[in-house]
C-alpha cells in the first residue's frame, strides 16, 4: 500500500519542531508499524536526508521502548505496543499522523524520541525491595495467597512505556506509578517498605512535574498491558493508609 505520513521532526531538545509530510510506497499489511518507518528511513538515507529518530528495542512488546502517538492515540489504534501494531490496521491511501509522547516531564530529545528518565527516578524512589541478594530462594519459602499473586502479576505487567502519560490530558503518571506500587505493596517481599514506597514514589512523581489524576480514564484505554484505571484507586488507598500510619 501507499501511505502519506505526517511526522513530527525536531532537530534537538531546544529546536522548534514541526510536522513534515512524506510518501511511502510498497508497504505490506504484514509489516509492523516500525518496519514501515524503517522503510521510510531507508529511503531518507538513500536521498541523503536525516532519518526519523524513534525509540525501539525488543520489537516484541516487552521492553517498553517504542513510543509513538499515531493518529492521536498512544501506540495507535490497537491495544498493543507500537512495535506490535501491524499495517493491516491501516488501508491504502491513508494519511497517518505520527507524534512523540507529549508531557512536560517527557521532553523531546529528537523527532519522536522523548526523555523518559523521570520514570527511572520514580522507580529509584521506592520501586524496589530491600531483599538480601544471593541465590534465588525456594519459591515456596514465602507463601503468597493466590489472589495477591494474581494482583501483583497483573501490575507487574507494566513495561514502563509511558503511553499512560502520553494519553492523559494532564500528563499524569498515576497509572504507571500505581502499577509499580501495587505490584510490590501486595506482596510479603514488599511489606517492609509498604508505606515509604507509596509516599516516596508519589512525591517523586509530583517532583518530576507530572500532572494529577482527573479520572478521565484515557491512560487505561491507551495502556498496551491493560493496567486498569482502578489501580489508581488502589494506590490512593495505599497512600491514605501510609499517610495515617507514618508520621514524619
Amino acid at each position: 500500500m501507499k501511505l502519506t505520513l505526517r511526522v513530527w521532526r525536531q532537530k534537538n531538545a531546544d529546536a522548534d519542531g514541526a510536522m513534515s509530510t512524506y510518501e511511502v510506497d510498497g508497504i505490506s499489511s504484514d509489516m509492523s508499524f516500525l518496519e514501515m518507518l524503517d522503510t521510510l528511513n531507508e529511503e531518507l538515507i538513500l536521498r541523503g536526508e536525516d532519518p526519523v529518530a524513534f525509540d525501539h528495542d525488543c520489537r516484541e512488546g516487552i521492553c517498553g521502548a517504542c513510543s509513538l502517538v499515531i493518529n492521536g492515540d498512544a501506540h495507535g489504534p490497537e491495544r498493543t505496543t507500537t512495535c506490535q501494531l501491524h499495517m493491516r490496521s491501516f488501508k491504502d491511501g491513508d494519511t497517518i499522523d505520527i507524534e512523540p509522547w507529549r508531557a512536560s516531564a517527557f521532553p523531546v530529545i529528537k523527532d519522536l524520541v522523548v526523555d523518559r528518565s523521570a520514570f527511572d527516578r520514580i522507580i529509584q524512589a521506592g520501586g524496589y525491595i530491600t531483599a538480601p541478594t544471593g541465590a534465588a530462594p525456594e519459591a515456596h519459602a514465602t507463601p503468597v495467597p493466590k489472589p495477591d499473586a494474581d494482583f501483583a502479576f497483573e501490575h507487574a505487567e507494566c513495561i514502563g512505556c509511558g503511553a499512560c502519560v502520553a494519553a492523559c490530558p494532564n500528563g499524569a503518571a498515576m497509572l504507571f506509578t500505581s502499577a509499580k506500587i501495587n505490584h510490590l505493596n501486595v506482596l510479603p517481599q514488599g511489606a517492609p517498605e509498604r508505606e515509604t514506597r507509596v509516599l516516596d514514589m508519589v512525591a517523586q512523581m509530583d517532583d518530576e512535574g507530572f500532572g494529577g489524576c482527573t479520572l478521565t480514564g484515557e491512560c487505561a484505554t491507551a495502556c498496551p498491558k491493560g493496567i486498569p484505571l482502578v489501580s489508581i484507586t488502589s494506590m490512593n488507598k495505599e497512600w491514605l493508609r501510609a499517610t495515617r500510619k507514618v508520621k514524619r
Partner: protein
Amino acid sequence: MARTVWDSSVGKKTVMAVSGLIMLSYLVVHMMGNLKIFFGAGEFNEYAHWLRTVGEPFMHYEWTLWLVRIVLVVAVVAHGVSAYQLSRRDIKARPSKYVHKKPRASYATRTMRWGGIILALFIVWHILDLTTGTVHSGGFQEGRPYQNVVDTFSTWYGNVIYIVAVLAVGMHIRHGFWSAAQTLGAGSRTRDRALKTVANVLALLLTCGFLAVPVGVMTGVVS
C-alpha cells in the same frame, strides 16, 4: 522526600473529594427542604424559621445555621483552591497539544472545570439573591422566603441562571461522586457499576428536585 498532604497531588485531591462530599450531602438536604415549597407558604416559611431554631435550647438562635454555613464556606474554599491549584499543575504538565486531535472522555468529565466555575459564580449570586436579598428582584422580605422564591422565578434571568447552575450541578456530581470514591480508595472492580449507578441516580435526583421549584413557579403551581 515525602510531601505533606497539602503539597501532594494525591493529598489535594483528597481535600477536594472530602469537601465535595460535604457539599454534596448539604445539597441533598437542601433540595429536600426546597420541595416543601409545594406545601404552601405557611409550611415553607415555618420550615425556614425552624432552620434558625434547630438545636435549641442547647444552641442559641441561628447558632446551628451559622455552624453549617461555616462548614460550607470552608468546604467551598478548600474545594475551589485545590481545584485551581491542581488544574494549574495539570495544564503545566501537558503544555503542547497533539496535532491530531481526538474527542476524549465523557461530557461530564470534560466539563468539571467549567462546571465548577459556573457553580462558584452561582453560589455567590444565589446568596446575594435569596439570603441577603442584595440582587433580589422585587422587594426582598426577610423571613418570607416563599414570596422571595416566587419573585426570583418570576424573572426570566432568575430562571435562566438557576437552571444553568442546576444542570451544572448534575453534571458535576455525575463525575464527581464516582471520582471522589476513587480518590478516597473506596472504588473497586466489583463496586464500579454500583458507584456509577449511585452517581447517576444522585445527579438525576438533585437535578430534578432542584428544577421542580422554578418549574413549579413558571407553571403557576407555586404562586
